[in-house]
């Protein structure tokens, strides 16, 4: 694997029963980029992220993160933000911070505590008594307080209102570790177009586009236009 590749996928297939979600896909993603993982709902974005983060094991093909199959090494260098709340409901922000501090050597506890103040969260309020938006903030602050090599963010803007969306995006962009790679799945292409260096579009279980933003712009198109074009085509052939 070339040294500048952080994610290598070869002939990856994954199905749930008879439903083939990823169909023999192959691609490389370079280090140090902000990569948009785009595609309509149900196209396999979450499945791909779960495979990369080591949560799904029964797939066919080869997956390498930082030259290693998903496992202890890759989990140590990957910061994963799932779509759903993964913290125990009795956890308070301070408990979650201590938990991350216990297990992740790249976790910056002081940074996390600063985030708590910045987000105006009560560090002693339980997760179950928080709103969905507050819970997402807690999970986000935990992830962004790590100096990971790879950030896997699954729909971080999915459940938030447009005002909060801009704030969250700003936090992500300003706080991810320099030289690290950020793979961010979304179907909100418009909001994020300006942030991406690279896009990977999935549809019908296939990689439809895997290219740099500069190339798209050189064609005189926006990411949204390309997205509509290829996803539209993918749906038509469905």
């Amino acid at each position, binding site marked *: 694997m070339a040294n500048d590749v952080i994610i290598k996928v070869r002939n990856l297939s994954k199905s749930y029963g008879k439903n083939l979600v990823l169909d023999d896909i192959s691609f490389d993603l370079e280090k140090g980029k902000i990569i948009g993982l785009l595609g309509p709902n149900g196209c396999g974005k979450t499945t791909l992220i*779960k495979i990369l*983060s*080591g*949560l*799904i*094991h*029964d797939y066919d093909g080869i997956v390498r993160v930082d030259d290693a199959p998903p496992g*202890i*090494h890759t*989990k*140590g260098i*990957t910061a*994963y933000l*799932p779509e*759903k*709340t*993964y*913290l*125990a409901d*009795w956890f308070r922000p301070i408990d979650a911070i201590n*938990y991350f501090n*216990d*297990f*992740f050597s790249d976790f910056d506890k002081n940074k996390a505590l600063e985030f708590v103040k910045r987000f105006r969260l009560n560090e002693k309020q339980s997760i179950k008594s928080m709103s969905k938006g507050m819970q997402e903030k807690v999970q986000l602050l935990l992830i962004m307080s790590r100096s990971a090599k790879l950030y896997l963010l699954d729909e971080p803007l999915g459940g938030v209102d447009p005002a909060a969306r801009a704030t969250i995006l700003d936090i992500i962009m300003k706080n991810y570790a320099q030289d690290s790679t950020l793979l961010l799945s979304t179907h909100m292409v418009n909001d994020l177009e300006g942030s991406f260096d690279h896009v990977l579009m999935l549809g019908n279980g296939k990689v439809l586009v895997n290219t740099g933003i500069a190339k798209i712009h050189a064609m005189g198109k926006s990411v949204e236009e390309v997205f509509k074009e290829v996803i539209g085509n993918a749906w038509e052939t469905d």
Partner: protein
Amino acid sequence: MLGKLIKNDLKFGAHSVSLVYLTALIASAVMGISLLADLETVKYISSVVFIIAAFAIVIVTVITIIISIQKTMYGSQGYLTHTLPVKTSALVFSKWFTSFLWVFISQLFFYASIVFMYFYVSGEDGFQMIKSILLSGEFSMLISEAVLKKVAILEASRLIIQVATITMYVLFGITLSNVRPFHVLGNLGAVIYSFITILAGHYLGKGAAKLADIALALTPDKVSVVVTEAAKDAILDINGAIRPVTATFTGVVFAVILYFIIIMLIEKKINIK
């Protein structure tokens, strides 16, 4: 990392079972109050209620632990658990060890309540009866004090081992309920598969004991392994004690095998939902 996992799993467990132990505390307090009422009817009713409550606490602890493991290992919290940079073997060991501790504490509470109840109901008569049995000439003819101590230690160890092995069986049952196609039964599957595994462990032990009835021979001087009936009779002739160990040993081996199967299932078969 294992130490940190155990520390955090103990915290998770404490949050899950705290309500159960609060109930135990209230039950004990009610018992204490009923002691003040010197009425035979109240005494017997509260004793029965207390024993039922103590047994219920064991059951509720087991159910609470099953739910907690489902959540933290295979439910939404599994997203965090399985993205920690730790070995799967450490994750499983930590869950097993902490679950075992909680179940063991609830069992201790149950046995302690039975002992307490015995003395509470029988009063001074019960205490005198046990004392006379232990000090009677007949009893000392059967077994010496030194051997009795060894038997007590062995039986206490057997109880601990049984709780430990059953905890692993339950952990296996929960894990199996998350593997296709066994997952279709959901949480009910966890209970059913646990029960089947416990039965399998029990009958495996019985079968092994029929094949080779190995026992520990306890005499005042030493503890040795005996296999033949003649050797066992010889030990009994000198007022020693014979305790069978095949079933317990088989249970331990079965639990260790299940531990590795659980690790394999997590690493190869289970997708966190």
